[in-house]
């Protein structure tokens, strides 16, 4: 009998549906290397239970947009032809490869990996693992037995499919690989998908992955759920740049986790752009496993309506001379809300670690709320650590300055919010992504300022 979470209390519709899905799929677990990880995931989920407010990081988080719905797996997409224009609008023509998933299922006919350089593999997780069992199988959910995050455990047990990217030693890709996860809900009952990603950047390779999560019908009132777990491995000297773009519908819940392993001299960038969803969480866990590992985690949330974003980061400096930087920004209108919970851990022997963390929020309405919780756990005595947070409104002085030069007030607001937001996009180390992402950010800001006016 499953003992998941609070046996004495009534299970939430979410928990009931999760158990039902596990029951129906556990008889058909395959292939074997995945089955053992799935079982590991389920075991961890049972042990951990879903996060409750008793957990420090979740104390102020209202999980109701997730827990009150019994999400069933999204159906097969009705017609892929219908989705063609939606997909073209969401993908970049110049991408090195395009991997498209609809309702959690890989769509080979909508994907394109023909332009990849020799040796680089990208495709559905199962296909790539079949071609290259090592190293994919040894990295995929390898530490599931010790997993601390319940949603990572849940996703590992229930994921439908995912992507894998393998970049061999020394190969440098200038253009980004693009992954699109599209949710195309049918009917009105709650439905969702659990998807994965694995990226392995071998020594001295260089790669940019942009994963985009979007809804096909933004006006749909159907509650949807996406859980996504992405594992990023940056081997010595590699540059791994991951951009997570979330533009799902206001009725969506988005529970993403990105787990990273950064080796010596490697540089990892994770940028989170969150513009939609009723509730959206991105948990980024960075294990800095060798000396001189560097990571930069940045985030930008542009929120309106009742949307709520939760950025949750843990950076684990395990070895000396590592560096980490975090810059998370939020622009909040109407009744939206942003939480940031960021922990920096520095192990006793991880001397000369240099970690900084900053959370900045621009509040555009009296009803918007922000909660910021920086946490440092330092067990070494020769380190540099800085953290800070600021919350403010648009500066009256700057607004007057711009309007006194003839800019309409609305344009002055737009210019100032864009100036605040652009820094996050400018920091993404991939030239090809900057212009399209700046356009996306500016169009979101325009919509937000119009709605907020």
């Amino acid at each position, binding site marked *: 009998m499953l003992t998941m979470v609070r046996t004495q209390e009534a299970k939430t519709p979410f928990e009931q549906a999760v158990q039902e899905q596990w029951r129906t799929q556990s008889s058909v677990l395959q292939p074997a290397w995945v089955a053992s990880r799935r079982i590991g995931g389920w075991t961890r989920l049972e042990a951990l239970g879903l996060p409750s407010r008793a957990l420090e990081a979740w104390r102020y988080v209202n999980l109701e947009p997730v827990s009150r719905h019994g999400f069933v797996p999204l159906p097969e997409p009705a017609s892929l032809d219908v989705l063609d224009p939606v997909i073209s609008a969401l993908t970049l023509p110049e991408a090195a490869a395009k991997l498209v998933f609809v309702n959690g299922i890989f769509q080979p006919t909508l994907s394109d990996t023909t332009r990849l350089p020799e040796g680089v593999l990208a495709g559905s997780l199962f296909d790539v693992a079949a071609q290259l069992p090592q190293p994919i199988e040894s990295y995929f959910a390898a530490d599931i037995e010790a997993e601390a995050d319940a949603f990572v455990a849940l996703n590992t047990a229930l994921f439908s499919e995912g992507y894998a990217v393998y970049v061999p030693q020394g190969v440098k890709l200038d253009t980004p690989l693009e992954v699109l996860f599209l949710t195309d809900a049918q009917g009105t009952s709650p439905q969702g998908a659990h998807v994965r990603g694995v990226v392995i950047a071998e020594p001295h390779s260089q790669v940019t992955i942009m994963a985009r999560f979007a809804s096909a019908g933004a006006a749909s009132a159907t509650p949807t759920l996406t859980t996504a777990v992405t594992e990023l491995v940056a081997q010595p000297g590699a540059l791994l740049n991951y951009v997570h773009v979330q533009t799902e519908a206001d009725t969506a819940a988005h529970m993403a986790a990105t787990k990273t392993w950064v080796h010596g001299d490697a540089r990892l960038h994770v940028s989170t752009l969150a513009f939609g969803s009723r509730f959206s969480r991105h948990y980024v866990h960075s294990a800095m496993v060798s000396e001189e590992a560097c990571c930069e985690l940045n985030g930008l949330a542009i929120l309106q309506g009742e949307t709520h974003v939760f950025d949750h980061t843990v950076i684990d400096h395990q070895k000396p001379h590592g560096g980490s930087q975090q810059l998370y920004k939020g622009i909040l209108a109407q009744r939206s809300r942003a939480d940031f919970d960021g922990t920096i851990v520095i192990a006793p022997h991880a001397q000369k670690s240099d970690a900084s963390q900053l959370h900045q929020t621009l509040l555009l309405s009296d009803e918007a709320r922000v909660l910021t919780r920086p946490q440092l756990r330092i067990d070494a005595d020769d380190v540099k650590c800085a953290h800070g947070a600021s919350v403010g409104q648009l500066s009256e002085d700057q607004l*007057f300055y711009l309007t006194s030069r003839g800019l309409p007030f609305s344009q002055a607001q737009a210019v100032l919010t864009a100036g605040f937001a652009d820094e996050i996009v400018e920091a993404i180390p991939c030239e090809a992504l900057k212009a399209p992402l700046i356009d996306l950010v500016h169009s979101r800001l325009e919509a937000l300022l119009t709605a907020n006016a």
Partner: protein
Amino acid sequence: MLEIRDVYARVDEKEILKGISLTINPGEIHAIMGPNGSGKSTLAKVIAGHPAFSVTSGDIVFEGQSILEDDPEDRARKGLFLAFQYPIEVPGVNNANFLRMAYNAKRAYEGKDELDPLEFQDLLDEKLKLVEMDPSFTDRAVNAGFSGGEKKKNEILQMAVLEPKVSILDEIDSGLDIDALREVANGVNKLMSPEKAVVMVTHYQRLLNYIQPDYVHVLSEGRIIKSGGKELALQLEERGYDWVIAQQAAEV
């Protein structure tokens, strides 16, 4: 062209301007001098429409129409310009883009087509030469990390691009060394023409050696207590403000 008619203005509950009247005609350069706290900067901001100040009585008329109800952007597009005493830093906003947006806002108001970035660059290059400014300034964020002198020059560059009819220069000389002062003053002189007017707010006679005023007004406690020609500035330099204030008190 610009007429200030018996203006009273306050910030919060404090009355700062107490009945100011001033008429500025095309081709004129006015200097407004006075001790600290006399209301000089307030007058400049009130003319530009700063939202922190409210005009409680009187009127400000520009080209025959009251502008009291106009927002700052409307006043700017009609041809008023305020060079700030402390130009505001706007990190994240590119200077060239900002100048183009301001220029295009004015073009749109005048019913003209906007200039695209390439067309605007030609215009900007010409203006940069006019005010003797290094083109690299336009690639940076607006005033962010600029020195005091660079900020003031950037104000003059904006003035050159927008070609306002009336420019109010609020202590454009403060914080400048003598070379920077000369450059800024040269810029203003080149931009002056018989159709335009300049109002300089300043503490010091020094600026007036470089930009020669037609009229000098002394402001004290929110009122103009004396007006005269440029020789008045020299008298002030020699004798201080107390002399004028005492003279005015004797008249009352």
